[in-house]
C-alpha cells in the first residue's frame, strides 16, 4: 500500500520544499500535523484530511486558525503525516462533505486514492495514446504529402475543356487548378503527365489566370514571361489588393513629428513609412478624410504613393539648380523636388495636358512652393523649348501595369500593342530629356527615368535603347530597397550596368510596381548610329553580353559630334560624307536617318556585323559611308523592318 501511495506522497513533499510560502496545500498539511503530531505512519495521504474538527459550515475560518499555528518542522511533519487508521476514522466521519482539493470525483477516501492513482495511469495512457496518434497522423501526413508530391495532376485535355464550356466553372476550382499547375511546373520532370508538353501546361495556366483574375490573356502571358509562375501568381494576387495610403510631409512648412502628432489628435492611425524615407507616413485608418484636414489644406503634407517618392530621391536635386520635370501633373514629385531644393533654384514643371496642370498649380501653391514655372508643352519638343538643365526627371506616361490595384480597368484595356506604343513614346521623351541636359553642369547632368509599369518593354528595353543612342551611363540610384533591373529577358540580353536600375513590385515591397533608372550624361555628343548602330541593335538581341560594353568604348572614341539638335546632325553628316550624300535633304528627322543607316538588307547586314566583330579596331569612316550608299534606296522599308525586329 505504501508503495502505491509513494508517488503521490513524493509529489507533495517536493511541492512543500519548493514552495516558500504557505499555500493551501501547506496549510492542510500543517493542520494534520497539529492534530496528530505524535503518530508517524509513513503511508499517509493527508491531503484530503484537510478538515479540522470545526463544523463544516466554516471551512474558511478554520484555515485561518491553522495559518497562525506553528511553522517549525512543517515540511517534515507533512511528509510523515497521519496514520492510515486515523485517516480512515477521520475521513469516514467526514467523507460526506470532505473533498480533496481539486478532486472532483472522489467520495470515498480509500477508493478515492486508488481512483486517483488509476487516474494518473489513465492520464498517462491517454497521453501515450495521443502521442501515438499524433505520430501516426504525422506519418500519414508525410505519406499524403509524398503522394501529393508524386501524384500526377491531370491536366484537362482539349475535349474536357470543351465539355466544361457549357457550365460555369467556379473560381475556386480554377484557383485550385492554377496552384496544381504551378506545383507541377516546379518539378516538371517527375510530375508531368505522360505526353503533355510544358507549353500545354503554360497555356492552361495562362488561360486560367486570365479567367480567375480577369485580365486579357496577352497581359498574363507577358507577366508569365517576366516572372516564374509562382511569382506571377503572387504578383497578380498583390495587384488585387489595395496599397496603404501614404502621405509625404512637406518640410517647407512642417516637420514630420509635429504633423504626425497633429493628425493623431484628429483620430488618424499612422506610422512612419519605412526606414528609407524621412518624410513618409503610412496611414492605417482615419476617422477624418485625409485629403481635407486643415493640415492638408494648409499644405503640411501631400498625398503621394511610396513608389513615386523614389524617383525624386534618386534624382537628388540640389538647392540652386535648374531642374526639369517633364510630366509633372499632379505635382507630387515636383513639390518633393522643390522641398529638397529648399525652394531655391528653378524648377520647370511641364505636362502635356492643361487640365492636369491645373491640379499641379493648386498643389504647388498649397504646399508653398515658390520656385516653379508651370507650363504645358509637348515633352518631345523639349530641347527646343528650353535646355541646359542640371537635372531632368521623366516620370513617363506608361501602360500602368504596376498600378493595377488603383485602376482595375487596366486589366482589360491594355494590350501588348498599347505597351509598344507607350514604349515608343517613352523613348522619344527620354531622348528629349537627355538632350535638354547640360552635360557640363558642375553638380548635375543627371537624368532620372521612371515608370509605374513593370513590363520590360517600357523599362529595360527603353534604357538599353538610350544607352546606344546617347553618351550616357547608368548610375546607382541609391535606392537600397528595390530589386535590380533585369539583365536578360527571354532572348534579349541587356547592358551589364542595367543592374543599377531598380524595380519595385506590389508583392515584394507592398508598393506600386515601379521602375527607376538614373543616367549621367557624359557629354553632349550623340551616338550617331553609324556602322556600329546595326551591330548594337543586334547585340541587344544577341547572346553576347560583352558586345554592349565594347560598343560603348568604341562609340565614344569614334564619334566626336558636339551638336545637339537633329538638324545640325544631319547637316554635319552631309558635310562629313561630302559628295556622297545628296539625299540628306529629305531626311532631317533623326528617325529617318537612323532608318537609312539600317538600310542594307538583312543578309548583308549580318555579314557586315560578322566582319565588324572581327576587325572592330580597323573600323574607319569609309564603312559607314558605303553602308549609307548601299542602303539609300530602301531606307524607309528597312526602318520599319528594324522596328519590328526590335519589338
Amino acid at each position, binding site marked *: 500500500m505504501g508503495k502505491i501511495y509513494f508517488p503521490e506522497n513524493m509529489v507533495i513533499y517536493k511541492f512543500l520544499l519548493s514552495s516558500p510560502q504557505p499555500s493551501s496545500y501547506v496549510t492542510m498539511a500543517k493542520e494534520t500535523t497539529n492534530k496528530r503530531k505524535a503518530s508517524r505512519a509513513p503511508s499517509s495521504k493527508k491531503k484530503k484530511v484537510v478538515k479540522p474538527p470545526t463544523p463544516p459550515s466554516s471551512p474558511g475560518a478554520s484555515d485561518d486558525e491553522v495559518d497562525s499555528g506553528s511553522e517549525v518542522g512543517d515540511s517534515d511533519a507533512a511528509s510523515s503525516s497521519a496514520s492510515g487508521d486515523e485517516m480512515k476514522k477521520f475521513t469516514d466521519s467526514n467523507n460526506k462533505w470532505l473533498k480533496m482539493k481539486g478532486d472532483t470525483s472522489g467520495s470515498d477516501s480509500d477508493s478515492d486514492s486508488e481512483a486517483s492513482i488509476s487516474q494518473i495511469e489513465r492520464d498517462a495512457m491517454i497521453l501515450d495514446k495521443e502521442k501515438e496518434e499524433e505520430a501516426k497522423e504525422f506519418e500519414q501526413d508525410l505519406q499524403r504529402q509524398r503522394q501529393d508530391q508524386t501524384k500526377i495532376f491531370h491536366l484537362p485535355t482539349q475535349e474536357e475543356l470543351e465539355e466544361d464550356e457549357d457550365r460555369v466553372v467556379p473560381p475556386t476550382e480554377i484557383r485550385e487548378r492554377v496552384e496544381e499547375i504551378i506545383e507541377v511546373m516546379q518539378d516538371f520532370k517527375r510530375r508531368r503527365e505522360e505526353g503533355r508538353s510544358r507549353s500545354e501546361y503554360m497555356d492552361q495556366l495562362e488561360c486560367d489566370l486570365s479567367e480567375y483574375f480577369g485580365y486579357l490573356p496577352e497581359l498574363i502571358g507577358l507577366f508569365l514571361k517576366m516572372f516564374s509562375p509562382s511569382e506571377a501568381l503572387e504578383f497578380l494576387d498583390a495587384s488585387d489588393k489595395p496599397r496603404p495610403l501614404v502621405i509625404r510631409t512637406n518640410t517647407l512648412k512642417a516637420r514630420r513629428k509635429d504633423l504626425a502628432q*497633429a493628425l493623431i489628435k484628429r483620430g488618424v492611425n499612422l506610422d512612419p513609412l519605412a526606414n528609407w524615407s524621412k518624410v513618409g507616413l503610412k496611414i492605417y485608418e482615419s476617422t477624418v478624410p485625409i*485629403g*481635407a484636414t*486643415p*493640415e492638408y*489644406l*494648409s*499644405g*503640411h503634407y501631400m498625398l503621394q504613393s511610396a513608389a513615386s517618392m523614389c524617383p525624386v530621391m534618386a534624382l537628388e536635386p540640389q538647392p540652386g539648380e*535648374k531642374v526639369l520635370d517633364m510630366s509633372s501633373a499632379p505635382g507630387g514629385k515636383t513639390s518633393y523636388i522643390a522641398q529638397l531644393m529648399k525652394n531655391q*533654384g*528653378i524648377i*520647370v514643371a511641364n505636362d502635356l495636358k*492643361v487640365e492636369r*496642370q*491645373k*491640379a499641379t*498649380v*493648386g498643389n*504647388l*501653391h*498649397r504646399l*508653398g512652393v*515658390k*520656385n*516653379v*514655372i*508651370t*507650363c*504645358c*508643352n509637348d515633352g518631345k519638343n523639349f530641347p527646343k*523649348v*528650353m535646355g541646359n538643365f542640371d537635372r531632368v526627371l521623366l516620370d513617363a506616361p506608361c501602360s500602368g501595369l504596376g498600378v493595377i490595384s488603383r485602376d482595375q480597368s487596366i486589366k482589360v484595356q491594355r494590350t501588348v500593342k498599347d505597351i509598344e506604343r507607350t514604349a515608343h513614346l517613352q523613348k522619344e521623351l527620354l531622348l528629349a530629356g537627355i538632350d535638354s541636359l547640360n552635360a557640363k553642369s558642375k553638380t548635375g547632368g543627371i537624368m532620372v527615368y521612371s515608370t509605374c509599369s513593370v513590363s520590360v518593354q517600357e523599362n529595360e528595353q527603353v534604357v538599353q535603347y538610350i544607352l546606344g543612342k546617347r553618351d550616357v551611363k547608368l548610375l546607382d540610384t541609391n535606392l537600397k530597397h528595390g530589386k535590380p533591373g533585369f539583365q536578360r529577358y527571354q532572348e534579349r540580353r541587356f547592358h551589364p550596368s542595367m543592374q543599377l536600375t531598380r524595380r519595385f513590385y506590389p508583392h515584394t515591397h507592398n508598393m506600386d510596381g515601379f521602375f527607376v533608372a538614373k543616367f549621367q550624361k557624359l557629354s553632349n555628343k550623340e551616338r550617331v548610329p553609324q556602322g556600329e548602330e546595326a551591330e548594337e541593335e543586334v547585340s541587344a538581341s544577341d547572346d553576347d553580353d560583352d558586345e554592349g560594353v565594347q560598343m560603348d568604348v568604341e562609340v565614344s572614341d569614334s564619334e566626336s559630334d558636339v551638336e545637339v539638335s537633329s538638324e545640325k546632325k544631319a547637316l554635319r553628316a552631309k558635310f562629313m560624307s561630302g559628295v556622297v550624300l545628296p539625299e540628306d535633304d529629305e531626311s532631317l528627322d533623326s528617325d529617318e536617318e537612323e532608318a537609312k543607316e539600317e538600310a542594307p538588307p538583312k543578309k548583308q547586314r549580318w555579314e557586315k556585323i560578322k566582319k565588324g566583330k572581327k576587325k572592330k579596331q580597323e573600323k574607319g569612316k569609309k564603312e559607314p559611308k558605303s553602308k549609307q550608299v548601299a542602303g539609300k534606296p530602301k531606307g524607309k522599308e528597312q526602318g520599319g523592318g528594324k522596328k519590328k525586329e526590335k519589338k
Partner: protein
Amino acid sequence: MRPLTEDEMRTMFQKLSTYIGKNIQHLLQNKTEAHAFRLLKDRVYYVSESLLKSAPNLPADTILSLGTCMGKFTKSKKFKLHITSLDVLNRYALYKVWVKPSSEMSFLYGNNIPKSGLGRITDGVPQYGGVIVLSMSDVPLGFGVAAQSTEVCKELEPTGNVVLHQGDIGEYLRNEDDVF
C-alpha cells in the same frame, strides 16, 4: 506676360495695403532675392528674379503659372486677392485673428467668424481692416476683413460677426477651377 501698368499697380497696392500696410516695400525689396510682379492673363504673379530670367525661354502661351499667384484683375478692373497669396500676406500681416478649434472648420467652409469662435485678436484692428486668420497653433487658414474694431469686438454678443470671410484654404478643394 508683362509688368504691371501704373494703374494696375496702384489698384493692387491699395488692396494689399489693407492687409500689410507699409510692409509692401518689403515685398518689393526682398532681402533674399529681388522679386517683381508680373501680369499673365489677368493674374498677378510675385516672381523671383531667377525665375523671371528663365521664363522668357518658354513659349509665352504655354506658361500657366510662375512663382506665387497673388490674385487677379476682374473684368471691371478691380483687384481680387487669391488664397494662393496667403503665405506672402501672412508674412507681413499687420492684423491677425486666431480662431478657436471649434469654429475652424466652419471658417474653412467659407463662413464668417462669430465672436464665439474668436480665440485672440491683435490690438488696434480698425473696422474693415484686413486680417489674416490663423488657427490657435499659428497655421494660416485664410483672410478677411474685421467686421468691428478690436474695442467693439470685446463687447460684442457671441453671435455677432468678428471677421467677414474673404478667402480660406478650403478653396483649394472647393473652387480649384476658378482659382487656377
